[in-house]
């Protein structure tokens, strides 16, 4: 297949393909982090994860419109404001949902699945009623479009690099929060033994609420970032949910390291196969491999020992 191409052509493609894989990796990590926190730390299967992402996307769209109309000089940097607002909006909605719905279901994990699925349908229809059934186009500042010309033949998408940088930043922040801050210690204490954590004075209800809010808030940031590479419509969240669950389940539900490792292996397999085979076949083979591995290792790549 490569007989007709020069060595430098192939080198350029190899480099760009490597970046394509890394970008896909970042996208997967960003999608899955919020879900992994909620699933891993709280054992709640949040089927409405995609809708929390799309809330972030809609917030970005509204911010973009508002900035264009009121303060056009701010437009080149509006995306950063939009991401913060997306975090706040999705996080606040997440905390509201936890308070109104999820906390009554902690002892019934399968019911959270149904409840959050219902929630996702409600949110989809709410978006449709509020923003209309059609997709909205989020306008990006000029500097975020286009590509960076590394050499004559190597072009790296700027929005891809932006997503990579964002993913690294958010991953570091999440790890810092969960593993170094005192609040993170409380979260992990609740995960390991809820009753004991309560006995030593940790407000477990509050910890739950903020954990859920954090997970949803990160979903909001992810949704905001994905307006650069994907569509924004009432049901666009559904496009991400399957891949997201795949990454989290394959990684081992309770492990953030596992999530990252699984995002890496799935994205590399997917993008390499896509290059040599076709898009649909790549998906089929990736899914088959994951199913086979999960049959041998149902707990996923990395499994932490947790309280049962």
């Amino acid at each position, binding site marked *: 297949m490569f007989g007709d*191409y020069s060595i430098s052509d192939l080198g350029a*493609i190899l480099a*760009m393909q490597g970046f394509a894989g890394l970008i*896909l990796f970042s*996208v997967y990590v960003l999608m899955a982090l919020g879900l992994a926190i909620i699933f891993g730390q709280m054992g709640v299967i949040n089927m409405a994860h995609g809708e929390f992402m799309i809330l972030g996307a809609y917030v970005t769209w509204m911010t973009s419109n508002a900035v264009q109309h009121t303060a056009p000089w701010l437009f080149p940097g509006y995306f950063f404001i939009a991401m913060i607002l997306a975090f706040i909006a999705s996080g606040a909605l997440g905390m509201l949902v936890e308070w109104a719905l999820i906390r009554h279901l902690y002892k019934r994990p399968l019911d959270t699945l149904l409840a959050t699925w219902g929630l996702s349908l409600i949110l989809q229809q709410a978006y449709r009623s509020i923003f209309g059934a*059609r997709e909205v*186009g989020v306008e990006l500042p000029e500097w975020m*479009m286009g590509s960076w010309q590394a050499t004559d033949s190597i072009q790296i*998408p700027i929005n891809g690099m932006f997503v990579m940088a964002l993913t690294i930043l958010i991953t570091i922040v999440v790890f810092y929060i969960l593993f170094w801050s005192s609040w993170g210690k409380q979260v992990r204490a609740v995960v390991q033994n809820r009753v004991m954590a309560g006995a030593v004075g940790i407000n477990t209800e509050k910890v739950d609420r903020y954990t859920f809010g954090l997970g949803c808030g990160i979903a909001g940031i992810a949704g905001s970032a994905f307006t650069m590479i994907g569509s924004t419509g009432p049901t666009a969240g559904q496009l991400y949910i399957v891949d997201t669950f795949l990454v989290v389940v394959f990684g081992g539900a309770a492990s953030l390291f596992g999530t990252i490792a699984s995002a890496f292996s799935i994205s590399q397999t997917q*993008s390499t196969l896509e290059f040599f085979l076709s898009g649909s076949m790549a998906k089929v083979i990736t899914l088959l491999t994951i199913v086979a591995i999960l049959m041998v290792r149902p707990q996923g790549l990395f499994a932490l020992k947790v309280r049962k």
Partner: protein
Amino acid sequence: MSDETKPGLKSPLRRKLLMGMAALPAVSMLGRPAFADVPATSAVNTTGLAVTDSEVTVGILHSVTGTMAISETGSVEAEKLAIEQINAAGGVLGRKIKFIQEDGASDWPTFAEKAKKLLVNDKCAAVMGCWTSASRKAVLPVFEQYNGMLYYPTFYEGLEQSKNVIYTGQEATQQIIAGLDWVNKTKGAKSFYLLGSDYIWPRTSNKIARKHIENHLQGCKVVGEEYFPLGSTQFNSVINKIKLTKPDVIYAIIVGGSNVAFYKQLKAAGIDLSKQTLLTISVTEDEIDGIGGENIAGAYACMKYFQSLDNPNNKAFVPAFKKMWGEKTVIGDVTQAAYLGPWLWKLTVEKAGSFDIDKIAAASPGVEFKGAPEGYVRIHENHHLWSKTRVGRAKADGQYELIYETADLVEPDPFPKGYQ
């Protein structure tokens, strides 16, 4: 509703509208005797459809919830506009159209169930509806069993023909062949990279495209053909492959949310559509709204209607549509085709002099609609439309600029020989 003037209608349509409106006050003053020229219900409705002396009921069956609501909203809007205009012009055989709208909810069994409800319970004289081929395939047996009439608006893959369906969009060969010939002739294109979402329409269309490229265009070849699962959002790998193979033309039939991801990533990867020719048959003005005009500017689309068409019918249609549905709404190919449905049905009923389904089906071939926003259309014996095929170039403001149109109407050929 009846005395509302549509501003700027300058066409045969306008004349009809004015005549209808002029007649209305007189009619309402005189009461029943004024209907003397309206044929008796028993004469025009021998099979028990929902037709009374003053009203006729039709159905609208689209998804207004679920994934497909994105696409089908425009069709619903167009059909309602057409019905309102027909009523303002005096209705069909002197009867006002009343519509019952059902929601297919993007779910094919629901479409079948609602179709049955519209035909069996509501006795609809005609149904405007469906969008995806899957939904049409789901309702087809229902329409054939209960003898209903469906006006289907979407461009689709062909390979179907039914007494009970009028296809107001283009079938695949109408949309594909003229476009490929054009790009081959004017751009000197020799190599093609075919892309599509992974379901029946893109696959069948690309099959026709491949046959045409390999068998009918001198020295042309397909350098790649790929499909992506519906909803796929990552296209960086295939974009790299395109960069490697450097095709003259990217031929893209990607649909739905994937569309947005594809064009955004294409632009981000540094593929400049003002230099790289891209020809699509799946992106209408509706989709550009989500993609963003700046991301797709320079791409060519091949279909039968663009909102920017410069003809008197369209100049009346676009403002009427915007007046009813808002200044910001855009009108894509399928929306226009959906608008044709109620009008073609009205003209057919008037030609047949009856609402009976069998008589309409028989009278359909040869029915002409001179007020179509796309220009003149005519129903073929195979229940598809004769229509022109056009190539437009996307501009940053989200509109297409007309580049080329076929000189004559293109004959619909749902079962193309040598292309299967």
